């Protein structure tokens, strides 16, 4: 049954990949959408079945077949649906389906074969993502983990003629590989240490041993390695640099992969192994700190970016950071909750930005936008809702989840982290509304104006996606994404076409109401989501026993009593933060535009630092990439391989040759010399016998 969930998209992939190049757009797109919807339906049904079960044994397991069997290592390809997975598959299939629908309109200008290729990739991604979340053991998860990485590589580089896109794709894959390296090591360590890769078995084994408080034992090492893998997948320090570049991909891709689903895999993975991480407090602290740092850093960068998608990308990074803070605090429920809500509004925001770009024919620089509110009403209002949600304005989805994270952090006593998180949410509100105001409000701006160009980005407005292809070939019929003269168009900018509008509206509704599944007790809710998820964060069959560190004490009645007050206070604080952030944004970018430039000029150094993303990419290039490349080329290849090793080989040959050349000279041709050598031989032999 649940095997069908990933199988449907896979089917779609097979169809589109094999004969898609001959199908008209309608069919290939239709197939892609159909399989996603089907998969969504199946997911809903299976979650329904799951919900029917009593909370204690809420798992549906299906072993497809034995994948690897080698000696005492036997690994089944098992899928397991549990509350956590349930949330994830709903998000993946639901949001995924919407984005497929959206894409049919967004990608409509591609030629048939490219169109089909796009959707085949998208389906494949969905399939792998579902395998990732449904996998019952690390290796199956890893299959999905790598698979989604591959799809993101393919989709980022979808417009392969554009060097920037291709580079970004490769960068994404390689950076992820670095994470995967650690991830694999972590897996192996767990496997060798505990003898299994199955999440439930691991959980029950680990639950039996005491947490590694203060010691950094095998479990801590393993979890840390896994977390490094997560930083790769979920774009955390130090491996976050690929995500902003990944914006080279088509916008729906950014929405689905780089906002809603794939990038959250790291968070999901930690949630999935809540017990393991719970038993490695040292690692947990590291997770939280890294998350907080990432959140803050990304937020600051997002404040000054001028590319609409990049702003969103950095906001994604920072939101992911918040999720990791929650995970690090042991507030797994909160983390997953934020993941869930984030999926809605971040997807919404990206799709919205996509609508804007679509309308502006590829324009992405917010300095060249403005005043779009009256041209693109649907886009505007949905975008606004999304921004409010992410800013954490009370009543909307983001409010509840982010607030719960802040609360858990504070309650765990890490007030420094709390402060960082709070600042982050303030920044979030600010840069999001900077985006909103610059894009939709004010008056229409044509030319880039006097703003500082963003040197780090390949997304100069005037660069067309298909630039650099000197010769026409079937794939490169120039679509209307290219930059045309705005003057020609901005009179009749068309709003999102129905397919896109539908996706936007649905997601907007989601962003508005999704939070209500997790209304905290303090507000009289009963935090349904947390309760639903609870079993997933505890060793199997021990639901009744002591909850995992920080698991969800909020659910205990007595805990509730003393915490309600605190929670409410924090809520007001955080709402205030959001409001203030929006206000600041409004003040600076709506009332007094010049102030922004003044600030930029005033703190030019800081501004440039932020604009160039703290020069991290440059740092990596200078310290890692170039040394390795040069070292390999000049040192290893030219030096050692050709010079030393092969030199030794050929040197031996040369030596023999030289010896030959020298020895043959003994053959002088003079017969007396020959007799001489014989005579010497005689004398020597006799000498040997007589003087021996």
């Amino acid at each position, binding site marked *: 049954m649940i095997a069908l969930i990933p199988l449907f998209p896979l089917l779609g992939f097979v169809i589109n990949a094999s004969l898609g190049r001959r199908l008209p757009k309608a069919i290939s797109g239709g197939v892609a959408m159909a399989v996603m919807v089907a998969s969504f339906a199946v997911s809903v049904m299976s979650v329904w079945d799951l919900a029917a079960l009593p909370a204690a044994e809420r798992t549906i397991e299906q072993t497809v077949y034995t994948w690897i069997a080698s000696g005492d290592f036997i690994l089944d390809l098992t899928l397991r649906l549990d509350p956590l997975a349930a949330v994830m598959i709903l998000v993946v299939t639901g949001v995924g389906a919407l984005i497929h629908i959206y894409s049919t309109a967004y990608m409509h200008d591609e030629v048939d074969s490219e169109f089909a290729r796009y959707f085949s990739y998208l389906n494949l991604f969905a399939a792998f993502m579902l395998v990732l979340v449904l996998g019952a053991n690390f290796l199956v998860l890893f299959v999905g983990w790598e698979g989604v990485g591959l799809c993101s590589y393919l989709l980022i580089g979808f417009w392969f003629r554009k060097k920037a896109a291709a580079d970004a794709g490769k960068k994404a894959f390689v950076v992820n590989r670095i994470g995967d390296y650690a991830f694999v090591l972590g897996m192996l360590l767990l496997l060798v240490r505990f003898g299994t890769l199955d999440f439930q078995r691991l959980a029950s084994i680990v639950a039996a041993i005491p947490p590694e408080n203060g010691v950094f034992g095998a479990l801590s090492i393993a979890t840390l390695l896994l977390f490094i893998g997560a930083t790769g997948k979920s774009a955390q320090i130090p491996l976050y640099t690929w995500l902003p570049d990944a914006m080279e991909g088509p916008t729906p891709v950014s929405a689905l992969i780089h906002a809603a689903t794939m990038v959250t895999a790291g968070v999901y993975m930690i949630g999935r192994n809540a017990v393991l991480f719970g038993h490695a407090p040292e690692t947990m602290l590291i997770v939280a700190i890294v998350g907080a740092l990432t959140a803050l850093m990304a937020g600051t960068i997002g404040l000054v970016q001028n590319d609409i998608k990049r702003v969103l990308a950095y906001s994604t990074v920072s939101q992911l950071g918040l999720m990791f803070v929650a995970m690090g605090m042991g507030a797994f429920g909160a983390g997953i909750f934020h993941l869930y809500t984030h999926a809605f509004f971040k997807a919404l925001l990206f799709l919205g930005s996509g609508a804007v770009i679509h309308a502006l024919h590829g324009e992405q620089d917010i300095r060249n936008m403005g005043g779009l509110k009256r041209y693109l009403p649907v886009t505007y209002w949905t975008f606004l809702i999304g921004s409010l949600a992410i800013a954490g304005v009370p009543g909307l989805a983001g409010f509840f989840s982010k607030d719960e994270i802040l609360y858990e952090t504070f309650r765990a006593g890490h007030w420094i982290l709390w402060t960082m998180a709070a600042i982050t949410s303030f920044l979030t509100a600010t840069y999001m509304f900077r985006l909103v105001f610059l894009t939709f409000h004010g008056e229409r701006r044509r030319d880039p104006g006097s703003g500082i160009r963003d040197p780090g980005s390949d997304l100069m407005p005037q660069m067309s996606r298909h630039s650099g292809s000197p010769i026409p070939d079937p794939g490169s019929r120039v679509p209307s994404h290219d930059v045309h003269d705005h003057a020609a168009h901005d009179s009749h900018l068309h709003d999102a076409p129905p397919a896109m509008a539908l996706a936007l509206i649905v997601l907007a509704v989601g962003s508005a109401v999704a939070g209500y599944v997790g209304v905290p007790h303090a507000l009289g809710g009963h935090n349904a989501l947390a309760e639903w998820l609870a079993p997933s964060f505890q060793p199997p069959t021990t639901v009744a026993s002591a909850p995992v560190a920080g698991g969800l004490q909020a659910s205990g009645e007595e805990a509730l009593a003393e915490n309600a007050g605190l929670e409410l206070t924090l809520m007001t604080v955080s709402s205030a933060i959001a409001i203030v952030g929006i206000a600041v944004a409004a003040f600076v970018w709506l009332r007094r535009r010049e102030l922004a430039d003044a600030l930029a000029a005033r703190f030019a150094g800081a501004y440039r630092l932020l604009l160039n993303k703290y020069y991290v990419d440059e740092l990596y290039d200078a310290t890692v990439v170039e040394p390795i490349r040069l070292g390999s080329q000049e040192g290893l290849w030219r030096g050692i391989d050709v010079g030393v090793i092969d030199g030794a080989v050929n040197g031996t040959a040369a030596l023999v040759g030289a010896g030959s050349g020298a020895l043959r000279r003994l053959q002088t041709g003079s017969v007396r010399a020959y007799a*001489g050598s014989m005579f010497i031989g005689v004398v020597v032999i006799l000498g040997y016998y*007589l003087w021996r």
Partner: protein
Amino acid sequence: MPETLVFYVLSGVAIATSALVIGQRNPMYSVLLLVASFGALAGLYIQLDAPFVAVAQIIIYAGAVMVLFLFVVMLLNAPREDAAEWDRTHPLRQPAFARFGGLLALVLVLQLAWALLSATGVDAPVASRAGSEVVGSVRALGRTLFTDYVFAFEATSILILVAMVGAVVLARREGDQS
């Protein structure tokens, strides 16, 4: 004692003439000196109760072989050594090589002498053993030659045949083959 004296004289002559043979630039003289050395050797043979060998030595060697040499020397009216110009320029002309060869020869002599002196039984006078009275009788010698050594004898005939053929093949004038 006379025979000791005779021995030393003869061997002295043999050695001296042989040394002169190779110390001689003119091949003609060399051949003649060699004949003399052979004569001395023949004397030693007689002293060793091998008259027949001595005779053979004189007749075959000094008589036949050396005459053959003489013929060739005259036929080619062999020039004195290093007459030709290239000879002076030849790397092997400098005497170092010759000295080296002489040195080796000296070493060889020393080795052999040392081996002989350190060997047992060679200081015993010759013919100290029994049966010395029959030694030298030609009949007995012939009998042995054609009984024990008959195969070697036949083989030698083949050898000489081969040498003949070879000499003919090699020395025949150009053009008149077969």
